[in-house]
């Protein structure tokens, strides 16, 4: 089936999800063209109402809400994406190596991951951030490291079932090195579940970073970020104004969309039709 027919046959939820993801990516890429004002530019009074010059009003410091939402797409999505890629590079590679090498390398890495996973992720992140301080770099590194443990588990489990197959044995007997085994033999056969997992992990990281920013411990001001935008403007909610909910809605919409798409991909690749 060509890609086009597959897309046409996709369920409504997956089409919706793909459309939203595309929209977000476009907004993130062309943020300066979409946003009427600058990211940190103070353009008016604080908490101005909707309409007129400011499409969605202004925030607590008088910055344009709509512009900050647009720039937030770029910052929050970018950082979450970078973190997920790092987590996959680290966790995925270690997982594949553990499965291929086996023995004490596997044992050692698995036990370390077990211990790291015994601590709740949010608590662990808070502990480390309190020590190293809340900069964007440390945020990305800490979350990538913590998330890599989950990726490690999955990629090791998937690779385990590939490693025992004859063609891997044949490659080993040919005397191929570790790098060849990982990239040419195991990875192509473990790709499908890993891609679906990438979507799920991205959602998780995205929610995680938003939660940390909401707690004031994630992406630091004046960078526009959806989590901290909710936090800064939350006081408006008590007056019945919905604008602080917009960034939260933006977070919810993208995670729902990614989940819809992942659900469809998983359903298709498993070949299962639920009875």
């Amino acid at each position, binding site marked *: 089936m060509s890609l086009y027919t597959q897309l046409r046959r996709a369920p409504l939820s997956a089409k919706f999800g793909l459309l939203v993801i595309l929209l977000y990516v476009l907004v993130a890429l062309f943020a300066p063209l979409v946003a009427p004002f600058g990211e940190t530019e103070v353009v008016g009074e604080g908490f101005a109402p909707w309409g007129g010059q400011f499409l969605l009003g202004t925030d607590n410091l008088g910055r344009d809400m709509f512009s900050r939402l647009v720039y937030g797409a770029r910052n929050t999505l970018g950082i979450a994406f970078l973190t997920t890629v790092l987590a996959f590079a680290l966790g995925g590679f270690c997982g594949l190596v553990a499965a291929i090498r086996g023995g004490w390398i596997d044992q050692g890495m698995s036990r370390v991951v077990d211990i790291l996973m015994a601590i709740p992720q949010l*608590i662990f992140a808070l502990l480390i951030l309190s020590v190293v301080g809340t900069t964007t770099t440390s945020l990305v590194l800490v979350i990538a490291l913590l998330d890599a443990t989950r990726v490690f588990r999955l990629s090791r489990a998937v690779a385990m079932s590939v490693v025992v197959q004859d063609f891997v044995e044949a490659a080993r007997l040919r005397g191929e090195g570790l790098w060849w085994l990982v990239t040419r033999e195991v990875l192509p056969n473990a790709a499908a579940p890993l891609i679906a997992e990438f979507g799920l992990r991205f959602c998780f990281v995205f929610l995680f970073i938003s939660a940390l920013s909401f707690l004031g411990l994630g992406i630091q001001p004046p960078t526009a970020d959806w*989590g901290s935008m909710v936090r800064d403007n*939350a006081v408006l909610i008590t007056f019945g104004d919905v604008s602080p909910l917009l960034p939260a809605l933006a977070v919810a919409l993208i995670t729902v969309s990614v989940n819809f798409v992942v659900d469809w991909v998983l359903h298709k690749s498993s070949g299962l039709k639920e009875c």
Partner: protein
Amino acid sequence: MNSLCKLLAQRLALGLLSLLAVSVIIFLAVGMLPGDVAQAMLGQAATPETVAALRLQLGLDQPALTRFFHWGWQLLQGDLGVSLANQRPIAELIGARLGNTFSLALLAALVSVPLALLLGMLAALYRNSWFDRLLNTSALSAVSFPEFFVAYILILVFAVKLAWLPSISNLSPDASLGEVLERSLLPVLTLSLVVVAQMMRMTRASLINLLASPYIEMARLKGIGQARIIFRHALPNALAPIVNVVALNLAYLVVGVVVVEVVFVYPGLGQLLVDSVAKRDIPVVQACSLIFAATYILLNTSADVLSIASNPRLMHPKG
């Protein structure tokens, strides 16, 4: 029976081991500070003499291993040390908050577990109907919502528009039970909504998995009704995965309280933790993390133990 005991003992030992490992990690986290605690407490402007004096007072001149055992021994005696920010004993800071946090998580569990199991069973019973689709889509959406989004929507609807409930849950010690319940209703609702979705999906998945097995087919061919098949034949076998899911979600609940407490200004442990991280009050962060991590490990271990204990196949090992 013997092998069952052995398996259980193994799990418990593993739980204890991870607890030890976690406490070592939490202890070592402080060692990663640039400089050390004494430097961090006094700030950049401190003279070398005062830093040295404080270091001596805190016992930082001792080797790390000695300090770890000292710290662990004091922990076991209930002495959590003093806060860097206000010099008060940490046990005093944590005391009442610990109870608040656990009662919040417990209330959320009491609401969400029965609801999730019921919805999961109904979804499995009427699978692929519009009811199931609706539940599934809304569960998938609920899982993807950040907790603070759910919380603020509830505040907007129930506290601001309808004005039925207070939007913040500042408990005072002399509040009556009714008052406490009223004030913690919104946080409980938020937490429940977040975990119900997950539990429901997994209950449905494990039941549907079972419904495809031959002995259910047999029961169906005998002409037994749908409801009886679910409750009599499928459910006892689905118990192990369901118990596991429930315990895992309770573990999640313990961590989920952090964000919810901040939104509702609920005087719990999570809020203390977040405040202390912002202030970099490391002994308090250590103590709170240790409590959260210990609860988490305890619940995870009991999930393992329960799922082993509720699996009838392990009661009668072959050979």
